[in-house]
C-alpha cells in the first residue's frame, strides 16, 4: 500500500516536470505551427546556465530562475529571428511543420556540440543543502526539488492561462493563431507576437532545465530524451491545447511510475513511446479535446 501511495506521489511530481517541458513545445506548435525539436537542447542550456550561476556565484538554483529566464528568452528571440522566421514564407502548413522540424534538428546539432565544448561532455548537477531531502506525508516521501517543480509548473500553468485569456498580448496571440493574415489586417503585429511567444516558449524550456539540473543531471546530449517526453505530453493534451498540458503531464507521470512496477525502470521510455503511438492512432486530437474543437 505504501508503495502504491509513493508511486502515485512521485508520478504526480515527475508529471509536473513533464508538463513544464511540454508547455514551450505546445506554445510554439499551437501558435506558429513550428515543431521545435531543439526544445530539449534549450532545456539543457537552461540547466547549464543555472549550474554556472550556482557554481560561479553560489546563487541557489530556484533563485536563479529569473536570470535563466532572461538568458533563454534572448536565445529564443535569436532562434526565431535566425531560423524560424524565414520559414513563414512557405505556403503550406504541412511544409512549414516539416521544415521547422528539419531546421531545429540542425539547431540540436549546433547547440549540443557548442554545449559540449563549453561545459565538457561530463554530466553536471547542482548539489544544494536540500538536495535529496524529503518531506514525509502519510508515509510517502516528497522530495523538495520535486515539490518545487510542481509549484513552478502550477505557477506557469496559471500564468499562461491568465496571459493568454486576459491580456492584450494573449488576445493578439489567439488572433494570430486563428488567422494570421486577418489578424495582421486588424492591426496585430503578427511578427512581434510570434517573436515574443517563441521567446516565452524557449524561456519555459530553460525553467524546466533548472528543475532538471537540480533534481536529475544534465549532459549535452540528454536533450533528446526530454524532448521526446515533451512531445508525448503535447500529443496527449492535444496539439495546441495549452490548458490541458498539466493534467496530461501528470497522467504520463502516473503511467510511468506504474510501469516501473511492471517492466522496470530502464524501459519506462519505451512505455511512453507506445502510449504516444497508441494515442496518435486512436485519438489524434488528444485526450482532452472533442473531435472538432480546437482551443489555445
Amino acid at each position: 500500500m505504501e508503495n502504491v501511495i509513493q508511486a502515485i506521489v512521485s508520478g504526480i511530481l515527475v508529471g509536473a516536470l513533464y508538463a513544464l517541458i511540454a508547455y514551450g513545445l505546445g506554445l510554439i506548435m499551437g501558435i506558429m505551427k513550428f515543431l521545435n525539436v531543439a526544445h530539449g537542447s534549450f532545456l539543457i542550456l537552461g540547466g547549464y546556465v543555472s549550474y554556472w550561476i550556482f557554481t560561479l556565484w553560489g546563487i541557489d538554483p530556484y533563485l536563479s530562475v529569473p536570470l535563466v529566464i532572461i538568458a533563454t528568452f534572448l536565445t529564443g528571440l535569436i532562434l526565431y529571428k535566425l531560423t524560424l522566421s524565414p520559414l513563414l514564407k512557405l505556403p503550406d502548413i504541412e511544409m512549414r511543420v516539416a521544415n521547422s522540424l528539419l531546421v531545429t534538428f540542425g539547431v540540436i546539432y549546433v547547440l549540443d556540440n557548442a554545449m559540449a565544448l563549453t561545459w565538457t561532455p561530463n554530466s553536471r548537477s547542482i548539489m544544494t543543502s536540500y538536495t535529496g531531502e524529503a518531506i514525509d506525508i502519510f508515509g510517502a516521501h516528497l522530495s523538495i526539488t520535486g515539490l518545487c517543480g510542481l509549484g513552478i509548473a502550477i505557477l506557469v500553468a496559471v500564468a499562461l492561462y491568465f496571459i493568454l485569456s486576459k491580456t492584450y498580448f494573449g488576445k493578439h496571440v489567439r488572433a494570430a493563431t486563428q488567422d494570421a493574415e486577418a489578424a495582421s489586417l486588424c492591426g496585430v503585429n503578427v511578427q512581434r507576437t510570434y517573436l515574443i511567444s517563441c521567446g516565452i516558449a524557449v524561456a519555459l524550456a530553460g525553467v524546466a532545465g533548472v528543475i532538471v539540473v537540480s533534481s536529475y543531471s544534465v549532459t549535452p546530449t540528454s536533450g533528446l530524451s526530454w524532448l521526446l517526453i515533451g512531445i508525448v505530453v503535447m500529443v496527449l493534451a492535444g496539439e495546441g491545447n495549452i490548458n490541458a498540458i498539466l493534467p496530461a503531464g501528470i497522467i504520463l507521470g502516473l503511467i510511468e511510475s506504474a510501469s516501473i512496477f511492471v517492466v522496470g525502470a530502464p524501459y519506462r521510455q519505451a512505455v511512453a513511446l507506445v502510449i504516444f503511438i497508441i494515442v496518435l492512432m486512436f485519438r489524434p486530437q488528444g485526450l482532452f479535446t472533442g473531435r472538432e474543437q480546437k482551443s489555445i
Partner: protein
Amino acid sequence: MTANWKKLLIAGVVCALFIALPMVMELGTNILNLLVMLFIFIILSQSWNLIGGYTGQINLGLAAFFGCGVLVTHFLWKAEVPIYLAVLAGGVATVVLAVIIGLPTLRLRGVYFAIGTLALAEVLRIVMGNIFATWVKMPGSYVTTYSLLPRYYLGLVVALIAVSVVYFVTNSKLGLAMVAVRDDEQAAQVTGVNTFKYKVLALLISAFLAGLGGGVYAFYRLSFYSISLVFSPLWTFEPLMAVMIGGAGTLVGPVIGSFFLVILSEVFALTLGEAHLILFGVLFILVILYFPYGLVGSVDQVRQLMARASRGRLWKAR
C-alpha cells in the same frame, strides 16, 4: 536517349575507377578508411533519400535501422556465419524491424512519422545500451587478419547496389507512386494510389539498404566500446545532411553530398577539432532555409537562370 547513355557512361567510368584504384596503386590506410566511410555514407544517404527525398516521409530513425544492421551482422559474423550472408541477414532483420515500426507510424499524419521514428531510435539506443553494457568486440583472431581491402570492396559493392536500387525503384511504377505521395498525398489517394502501401514499401527498401550499410560498418569496425554509439542520432543526422546538401529526391545528389561531407569533415576535423560539428550544423540549417534543392538543384536553378538570361539577350538583339 543520348543523354541517358552519356550518364551511364560516366557512372561506368566512375565505378571502374573505384574498382581499379586499389589494384593499380597502393593506397594509404588513411585514404582507404576515408573511402570506406564514404561508401557507408553513400549507402545511408541513398537509403534516406528513398524514403525522405522521393516519398517525402521524414525519417529521423535511420540510426535505429543502421544500428540494427550493425548488431545483427556483428553477432552473426561472430557465430562464424560468412560475412556476406551476415550482411544480408542484417539487411533482412532491419526490414523486419521496419515492418514493426512502419505499420503503426506510417499511419500517423505528417511530422508524427518523424517524431515516431526519432522516439524509436532513442528507445532502441537506451535499451540496447542497457542490454549490451560491456565492450562488444570480435575475438582476437579476427583482429590479426584484419585488412582494409575486403572492407573497401564490400563497401563499394553495397554502395553500387544502393545507388542502382534507388535508380531502378525510382524509374518504375513504384517510384512514380512514391513521388505522387510526396507531392500531394491526398490527390494521389483520390486518383487511386494506395498511398499507405507505397509508403510502407519505400520504408522497407530504405530500411534494407540502411541495414546493409550497418553490416558494412560491422565488418569495418571490429569492436564497439559502447553499442549505444551506433544508435546515436549522429547516424541519422549526417546522412540526412549529405542528402540535403546534395539535393533530396535526386539520384546523384546524395552521392555528391556524401563526397562533400566526408572530405569536409576530414579537413575540418584536423583543423578545427570538435568545433567542426557546429559548423556542419550551421551549414545544414542554411541549406534547409535557403537552398532547399541542394547542390544539384542549385545547379539546375543557375542553368535555368542562364538560359533565361541568354534568351532575353537574344530577344533584345532582335
